[in-house]
């Protein structure tokens, strides 16, 4: 639905639409991520619901103009709730031929295509390995193509400031931004504040040039005839409150700080740089005045072990990585499990195996974190479902870690780590405490302190160095329950293995039961986890609107599973498990609940589209019969 009304500023009309999906793409040196971030923040400030998907190459600066160097940023902003950055594009902005040819497939017929026509010269085509200019292909007739001489117009706009050719050229992303802002009725104020904050107080020539380029882009939109109208997107009806835009990794850092605050602890964050987890380190190292101590270790192993050392000393210890680094931390995690110390291990998943696809998303570390340790070594595993949920999940993880004296794994992924959405700013005064105690007196009046004497949850006491009379030694060798002394006794080993497993099972007592979106019983249950939440929820809701008998159970607690999950599963005729892996949760669900769950799997480094999930749900609910074979995503 859209309505048209004449614009107040000029003769062009303004069309009101409920949501827009735009992708901005260009060379990785063209500032596309900046453009995307600014458009996102501006849209958030306009009160729209938003979801973003930055997509960039692993190379910092792949050769200019090549397909390998294309960097993109997709954002959906809407007056209704959105949970994904959008399946299909309303508009594509392509700054060069490489960006055009690698992204055009996602623009449907009739979509708006804005290109920088100055970058379609022979040399640009050659860099993109193109023999003919794609702008001259007949296929272009399928789109509303707007060719804009962005480079030339930007140079003209900043001419009077006397910048070098290179400096002037760098402003062209702001020209494109101005044009996009005009098109979608975005307010330029926040971006102007950003420009002046970033490039000086507004008097520097770079700041002035960027502002001029931005305004020139806006003016261009107003002027050219090819763009007949602009768009208006009303604010979304979110739950009342104060909001800000938040990126997943930033939310993870904030969640850690909230957990520290709630437990009266200071954070010790030890990590080794790795994509896409490093931004958590970058964020936390800014907050030294909160007592946050960050340690960039010599390797992944040192990072997890330093965290364990800090935990032994009584600190809130956290380490993070992505799949390859988690592989290296494995032995350390096993030790922390034996020492029964609280520790958070954050795994921001990326495409694997091995180095895999460092900047692309995947959910393929589930089995690794569940089972990737020697011996019988279960650990609690929690997974964030969206960028803002990183804030919540990591606090739940710290609650479990301290109440059970156990390392807890938090899964995120590249998609939610770099993606963003509105976040309701929490009221710090309303936070509930996470109670942590360190004993000061011996728990054994008849003899030496017993470091492995347990409470009702089977947690041992967190006695810390510096406490008189509680000296004790911990280690990776099997220990006698109670005393913690080395023990090779067969019965004791069985007992300790059972206790460690039961501790993990006890986590379910501390966590809320599984919720279901949709009918409480019926034809199909979609069972999802992690970063696919937005796409699965949207697809399920769309299918429900189509009359399909389908519900969604999105699992945030993967080990242990919520206590009511088996019962929920039994209420539906079919179970569909969509995952960005080849069926890892499905294997766990099948083995645990003996249910013939069907998989919907994709490993292309890309998130699910709502459309492909919707199609699968419709197929399964309409067929109404059990389909034993799992199908592949398109």
């Amino acid at each position, binding site marked *: 639905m859209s309505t048209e009304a004449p614009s107040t500023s000029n003769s062009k009309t303004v069309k009101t639409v409920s949501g827009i999906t735009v992708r901005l793409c260009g060379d990785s040196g063209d500032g596309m991520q900046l453009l995307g971030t600014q458009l996102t923040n501006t849209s958030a400030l306009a009160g729209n619901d938003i979801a973003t998907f930055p997509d960039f190459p692993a190379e910092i600066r792949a050769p200019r103009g090549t397909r390998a160097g294309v960097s993109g940023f997709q954002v959906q902003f809407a007056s209704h709730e959105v949970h994904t950055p959008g399946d299909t594009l309303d508009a594509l902005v392509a700054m060069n031929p490489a960006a055009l040819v690698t992204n055009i497939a996602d623009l449907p017929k009739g979509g708006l295509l804005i290109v920088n026509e100055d970058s379609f010269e022979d040399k640009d085509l050659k860099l993109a390995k193109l023999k003919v200019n794609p702008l001259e292909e007949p296929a272009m007739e399928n789109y509303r193509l707007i060719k804009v001489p962005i480079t030339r117009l930007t140079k003209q706009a900043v001419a009077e400031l006397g910048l070098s050719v290179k400096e002037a050229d760098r402003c062209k992303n702001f020209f494109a931004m101005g044009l996009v802002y005009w098109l979608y009725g975005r307010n330029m104020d926040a971006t102007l504040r950003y420009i002046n904050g970033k490039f000086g107080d507004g008097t520097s020539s770079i700041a002035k040039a960027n502002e001029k380029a931005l305004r020139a882009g806006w003016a261009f939109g107003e002027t050219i005839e090819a763009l007949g109208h602009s768009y208006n997107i009303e604010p979304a*009806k979110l739950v009342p409150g104060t909001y800000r835009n938040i990126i997943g990794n930033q939310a993870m850092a904030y969640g850690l700080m909230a957990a520290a605050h709630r437990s009266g602890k200071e954070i010790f964050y030890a990590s080794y740089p790795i994509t896409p987890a490093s931004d958590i380190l970058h964020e936390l190292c800014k907050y030294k005045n909160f007592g946050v101590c960050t340690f960039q*270790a010599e390797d992944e192993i040192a990072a997890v072990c330093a965290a364990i050392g800090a935990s032994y000393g009584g600190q809130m210890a956290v380490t993070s990585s992505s799949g390859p680094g988690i592989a290296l931390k494995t032995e350390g995690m096993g030790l922390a499990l034996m020492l029964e110390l609280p520790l958070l291990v954050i795994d921001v998943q990326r495409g694997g195996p091995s180095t895999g696809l460092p900047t692309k998303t995947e959910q393929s570390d589930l089995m690794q974190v569940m089972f990737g340790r020697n011996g019988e070594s279960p650990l609690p595993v929690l997974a964030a479902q969206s960028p803002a949920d990183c804030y919540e999940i990591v606090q739940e993880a710290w609650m479990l870690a301290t109440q059970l004296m156990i390392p807890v794994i938090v899964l995120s992924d590249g998609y939610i780590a770099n993606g963003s959405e509105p976040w309701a700013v929490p009221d710090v005064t309303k936070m509930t405490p996470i109670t942590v105690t360190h004993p000061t007196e011996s728990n054994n009046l008849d003899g030496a302190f017993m470091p492995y004497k347990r409470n009702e949850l089977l947690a041992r006491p967190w006695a810390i*160095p510096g406490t008189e009379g509680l000296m004790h030694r*911990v*280690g990776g060798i099997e220990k006698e329950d109670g005393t913690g002394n080395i023990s090779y006794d067969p019965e004791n080993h069985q007992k300790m293995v059972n206790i460690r497993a039961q501790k993990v099972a006890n986590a379910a007592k501390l966590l809320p039961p599984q919720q279901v979106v949709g009918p409480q019983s019926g034809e199909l249950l979609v069972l999802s986890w992690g970063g696919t939440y937005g796409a699965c929820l949207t697809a399920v809701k769309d299918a429900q609107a189509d009359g399909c008998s389908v519900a969604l159970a999105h699992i945030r607690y993967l080990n242990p599973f919520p206590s009511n999950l088996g019962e929920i599963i039994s209420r539906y005729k079919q179970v569909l498990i969509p995952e960005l892996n080849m069926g890892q949760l499905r294997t766990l669900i099948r083995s645990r609940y003996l249910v013939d769950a069907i998989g919907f799997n994709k490993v292309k480094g890309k998130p699910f589209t709502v459309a492909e999930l919707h199609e699968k749900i419709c197929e399964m609910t309409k067929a109404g019969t059990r389909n034993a074979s799992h199908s592949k995503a398109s």
Partner: protein
Amino acid sequence: MSTALPVLKAEDFTSDQDIRWCPGCGDYSILAQMKKVLPEIGVPPEKTVFISGIGCSSRFPYYINTYGIHSIHGRAPTFATGLKLTRPDLSVWVITGDGDALSIGGNHFIHLLRRNVDLNIILFNNRIYGLTKGQYSPTSVEGQITKSTPLGVVDHPLNPISVAIGAEATFIARSVDSNIKHLAYTLKRAAGHKGTSFVEVYQNCNVFNDGAFAYAQDKATRDDTTIELQHGKPMIYGKDKDKGIRLNGLNLEIVDLSQGKVKEDDLLFHDEQANPALVYMLSRLRRPDFPEPIGVFRAVSDQTLEDAVRGQIDKAIEQKGRGNLQKLFSGGETWKVGA
């Protein structure tokens, strides 16, 4: 005020665990000296933490009644670093071996030293893998016959002291398990140094590599095969104190003092703060061509990691004030959605 502090004794540091080293192992002697020295250092047991890796020597923490972590192979320096960064108030000792510190843990070893964390790391060097029953280690000598090298070791060995110099260690020393007076003195010096104190101890594995350091242990030979480094003193050794070490160009050489041709003043005087290049040259003195130095090679003062890190945190708090979580969360660009 005359409230007398309780005087600590070696028994205060003795745990209730049975010691499981082989009879005759050099580790017993090191443990005994440690327990003798700890009360003299004056840090109470509850403020002391022993952290070890894996190997025979790494069982050490179980036998000392302080706090302790028997960790995983090669990683002891990392646990110690994390602990010390968050609990600078504790006295931390790392117990390691030649395989633990220089093979599987080589990376952590050099990074611990260059960061200068204020702790003491004692490397029990027996030139063999004991706990895994007799394979060669990174300090095994070329040609050494071991269970995994029936035709002799072909790797070039690492020299722990040379590695420590290369890794910017601020305190480097060497002692011998059976030379208990010297060992106790060296451990005390290590404890007194602020920064990472690295001590290599020649330790005899009487089961898998017996006699590897007999020359340095045997009272009959040790005066001629080792030279004790003493700060500010000329480098003289030998049963009759008749030999010395002289710097000749870029080389060290042995000189005979008995003829009266070379005077003491011509000798190299040991300086714990000397140019590391000179310390490196000392680390290269090896039998059979030279006596092997024992004692403190180097002791220089530098900022510790935890002081630097805590200093940045303190400064940030001083400059910005204690962080306010609500301010942080509400910061940046926000918008309100009305009811």
